[in-house]
């Protein structure tokens, strides 16, 4: 059984079309709808299709006019070449370390703090929460300099720790989890308290298991954001051994001769595939998480 998330409910609530499909006007309307949607979908997905196809072309077929949408011969060797001519393994390893650690820390501290904000009443709580939410209106770009100065004082720049710390304590996780915790009925916690369970016990044994959908949303969103992050690694990770996939590929572009563009596309495809798979599997959690918080951006 799956928990019904927001958009499924949404679809159920969508305007009921009168069963008039046989009327010519309705048929025409429906055709126009599909036409519009198809145009949109082609526009949205065409760049990905092109990237995938280019990763299988021979080197000089990537730039041809008129454009070749499909490769003349499928050059699977590009995927071997990118592996041999770049440090992609190191990049993937670093990216994985960062994504997993950040996601874990964000989940742990975020859900823990969210319980404090949602379910324990104490003076100053609401003001503090307002401060958390308020920082969402503050662009990271505006305080990246003092942050960088602080990290260099602690000699943390050019280490993976810097990027971990940068991302792990965001207000986003706290906010998302709090919104969800507020929907869990107080009576349930009350009963646990009467049974002598501590607040920590309630968090660990009632709240966490009940908030699995929200945890899933947070996991997927945080993992994806960290995997795709470009700015954090760009500012902090200077030595090639610390580069992430995004940083490595971006640098790879600058060392390219035209001949190797097909390899680059193979590398880019490799960097997009894990996210595509994760997104395909957990789409509903992505969407529910964003619909709830709307803050990731």
């Amino acid at each position: 059984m799956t928990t019904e998330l927001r958009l499924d409910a949404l679809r159920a609530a969508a305007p009921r079309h009168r069963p008039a499909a046989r009327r010519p006007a309705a048929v025409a309307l429906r055709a126009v709808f599909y036409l519009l949607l198809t145009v949109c979908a082609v526009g949205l997905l065409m760049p990905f299709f092109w990237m995938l196809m280019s990763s299988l072309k021979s080197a000089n077929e990537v730039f041809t006019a008129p454009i070749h949408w499909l490769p003349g011969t499928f050059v699977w060797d590009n995927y071997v070449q990118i592996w041999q001519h770049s440090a992609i393994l190191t990049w993937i390893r670093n990216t994985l370390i960062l994504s997993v650690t950040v996601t874990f820390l964000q989940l742990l501290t975020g859900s823990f703090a969210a319980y404090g904000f949602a379910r324990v009443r104490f003076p100053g709580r609401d003001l503090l929460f307002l401060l958390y939410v308020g920082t969402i209106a503050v662009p990271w770009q505006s305080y990246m300099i003092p942050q960088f100065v602080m990290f260099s004082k602690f000699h943390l720049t050019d280490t993976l720790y810097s990027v971990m710390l940068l991302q792990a304590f965001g207000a986003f996780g706290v906010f998302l989890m709090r919104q969800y915790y507020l929907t869990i009925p107080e009576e349930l916690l009350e009963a646990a308290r009467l049974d002598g369970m501590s607040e920590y016990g309630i968090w660990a044994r009632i709240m966490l298991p009940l908030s699995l959908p929200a945890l899933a949303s947070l996991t997927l969103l945080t993992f994806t954001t960290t995997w795709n992050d470009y700015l954090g690694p760009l500012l902090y990770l200077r030595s090639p051994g610390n580069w992430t996939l995004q940083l490595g590929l971006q640098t790879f572009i600058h060392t390219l001769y035209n001949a190797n563009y097909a390899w680059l596309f193979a590398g880019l495809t490799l960097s997009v595939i894990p996210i595509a798979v994760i997104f395909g599997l957990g789409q509903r959690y992505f969407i529910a998480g964003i619909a709830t918080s709307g803050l990731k951006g």
Partner: protein
Amino acid sequence: MITTAAEPPVFGKPAAAGPGGHWFNAHWRPRHRTRTSLIGWSFILPNLIGFGVLTLYPVLSLFYISFTNWNVFGTAQWTGLANYKRLVNDPMFHTALLNTLYYCAMTIPLTLLTSLGLALLLNTKLRGAAFFRTAAFFPYVTSIVAIAVVWNLLFSPQYGPVNEVLRVLGWSSPPGWLTSEDWAMPAVAIISTWQYMGYYMVLFLAGLQAVPQELHEAARVDGASAVQRFFAVTLPGLRPTTFFVVIILTINSLKVFDLILVMTNGGPGTATLVLSQFIYQDGFVNYQFGYASAASVALFLLSIVFTVVQFAFNRRGMAR
């Protein structure tokens, strides 16, 4: 997955059940209260320490640094408003500011219209809606580097498919896009719209859910056309969502950075130089922390002012 009776069916709408009875009840005692406070803080502290050190402290120290002449070598000396005076007279800063506003002026309406349009199209029971939703959302979860490479080639003046299509449609000398001073910013705005419209579409879809179906039915019974219903029912019902989307969209557009960095790096010339990049250049390339911080304060204030103004407008609109 879990299916308890307690499980809320819809994720996100905070139920009215706020922190309930227990803490309000008659057995409330001061000792209790201290203990509760301690427990509360203990929950928040692990995150708060990280958040405080890594976000709050830098935000506060930003203001201090902006009044100093700090660079990477020397120590910080208080120079008062010197950085701000320099900023006001710096033509590069003017360019960055104007470019940022230009980018916002293109991206915000474009994204708003396309994402709302998509949401309206998908808020129906059409078969395949789920697929289209996925397609629309996918660019949002794709890495910026892949987006940059692909779009750079798609927009390529000679070989690019975009111009090839435009030529077929009869535009004999289509724009140079990212290589043209006039067209680079519109090109970036188009890519940004492409990347983010799925994300805002999700927000609009969630908002459409909150529009009462009965109102639509009533309007239909009264003979209102689809267009009339859109303006009289859907749009007013979407008001809170639109408000929220505009705020997030504005902040995100003001701070635009990575897209610019990987697409154009501010060029050609200074045609796409934006505020964030100005800060980056002065801070991380020229190591003028003090001066870059003054520019950061400008970006900070711009975001806050826009947000506050929108809140004020919204409140006035609500009161009417």
